[in-house]
């Protein structure tokens, strides 16, 4: 089976800081693949690279047979119509209401009659349980609702895949549960491929088919949630179980505490 997204030898720097240092990832059709890792490992950057918003220094990302960074602008935009992305903030347009937000991609990319757009939008909103919130403005929504609206919008054009950027961050337990279920259900019901970037281990392992663990610019480990839970590596164990200390130290590296205390005032 050929993967829907094939990432090979990906190198990406931001200034002097190396974000990716030779990353290979395969994402298969119909599956929920999670990209996990501590904060600052460039998980969001990876999504932006897949979406063609950033350009890698080296390596390739092939999505559905097309090398994202070799496409013309027009072809890239055509590819993006087949990708949905759920931003961490939701990224809803704040000057229009929920209905218009979900209808936005339809108005921009299709010539469908008004009545059909209405039906499509209501269907998408029904799927995320917010049909009756259609007249609300984004500022009136809670964080969880905003993310669900954004999910409805990401699905508006019936994409082949959806990229989720930290979908669980800052959610209360109820909306967290709702989102976890939605992502899995949508994926299976609509035949999507989902890529979930997250550092919420418990939620992500519930729904992921495959997990890639990133750290220090490299893939540290990969496999099904069960495989990773049983991984022999100390690092993977620390991350998956959320232990405060281990290969990743609790303290930001630098001078010893005792030295700092004895250094007196002059070394603030």
């Amino acid at each position, binding site marked *: 089976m050929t993967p829907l997204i094939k990432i090979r030898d990906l190198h990406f720097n931001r200034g002097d800081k190396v974000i990716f240092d030779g990353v290979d990832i395969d994402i298969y059709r119909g599956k929920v693949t999670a990209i996990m890792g501590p904060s600052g490992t460039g998980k969001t950057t990876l999504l*932006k690279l897949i*979406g063609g*918003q950033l350009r890698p220094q080296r390596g390739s990302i092939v999505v559905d047979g097309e090398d994202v960074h070799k496409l013309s602008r027009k072809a890239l*935009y*055509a590819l*993006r*119509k087949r*990708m*949905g*992305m759920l*931003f*961490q*903030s939701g*990224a*809803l*347009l*704040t000057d229009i209401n929920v209905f218009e937000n979900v209808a*936005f*991609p339809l108005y*921009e*990319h299709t010539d469908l009659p008004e009545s059909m757009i209405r039906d499509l939008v209501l269907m998408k909103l029904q799927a995320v349980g917010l049909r009756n919130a259609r007249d609300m403005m984004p500022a009136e929504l809670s964080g969880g609702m905003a993310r669900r609206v*954004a999910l409805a*919008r990401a699905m508006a*054009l019936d994409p082949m895949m959806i990229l989720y950027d930290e979908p669980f961050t800052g959610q209360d337990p109820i909306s967290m549960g709702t989102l976890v279920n939605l992502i899995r259900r949508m994926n299976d019901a609509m035949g999507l491929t989902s890529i979930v970037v997250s550092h919420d281990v418990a939620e992500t392992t519930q729904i992921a088919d495959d997990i890639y663990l990133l750290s220090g610019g490299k893939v540290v480990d990969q496999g099904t949630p069960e495989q990773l839970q049983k991984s022999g590596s100390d690092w993977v164990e620390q991350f998956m179980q959320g232990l405060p200390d281990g290969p990743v130290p609790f303290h930001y590296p630098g001078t010893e505490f005792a030295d700092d205390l004895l250094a007196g005032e002059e070394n603030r």
Partner: protein
Amino acid sequence: MIDFIRTLGRWALGTMERLGRATLLLVQILTGIPELMMRFSLVVQQLFYVGVLSVLIILVSGLFVGMVLGLQGYNTLVDFGAEESLGVLVSLSLVRELGPVVSALLFAGRAGSALTAEIGLMKSTEQLSGMEMMAVDPVRRVIAPRFLAGLISMPLLAAMFSAVGILGAFLVGHSLLGVDDGAFWSQMQAKTDWYEDILNGVIKSIVFGFVVTWIALFEGYDAVPTSEGVGRSTTRTVVHSAFAILGLDFVLTALMFGE
């Protein structure tokens, strides 16, 4: 010394880079304009926010500037017995200079800063990025309509400013100071030239509208996506616009009336 030269060099390089980015943005905007003609409703919407909402400040300021011009002009002219030329004085100063310049300065403060803040916040809340991922080019969808709206609004606002200013001067000159109304209007009509004065003023205001809107949109689009960054960009819009307006005004005046 070396440090100073280094800082200067870095500043110069940074400025050139920003100029380059601003020019690229302008090119993207201009290439998006033909497409925009098919969806003019986007421009109309922005005309409301950029233009119509600036009307009040323009009208009120224009009225006061005109009234002050009327008072000051009268006081000078009356010494020479030339107070009936008040109409010419007022109309030429407004149409040639104050109309385009002051309304552009006000426009930069009212509409320019709002544009920068809006675009900057859209950037920092990932709305622009979100559009890109929905395969919608934010430059064409968000920036270009605002640019066109600024370009169209500015000359109209400057014309309103001048018209209201002349009215203000007339109120003060005729009703308060007793200048003959026939002389006021007829001398104004006789001495204000359509091409030389009015058209040149309109050209100025179009140039200012172009530059102010460009600066405002670029600053927003290029803003550092934090609250501090957007704040700085908004300040820069007002400051840079003011410099650009006053500097360009000198250049344009020298070209138009300089012989």
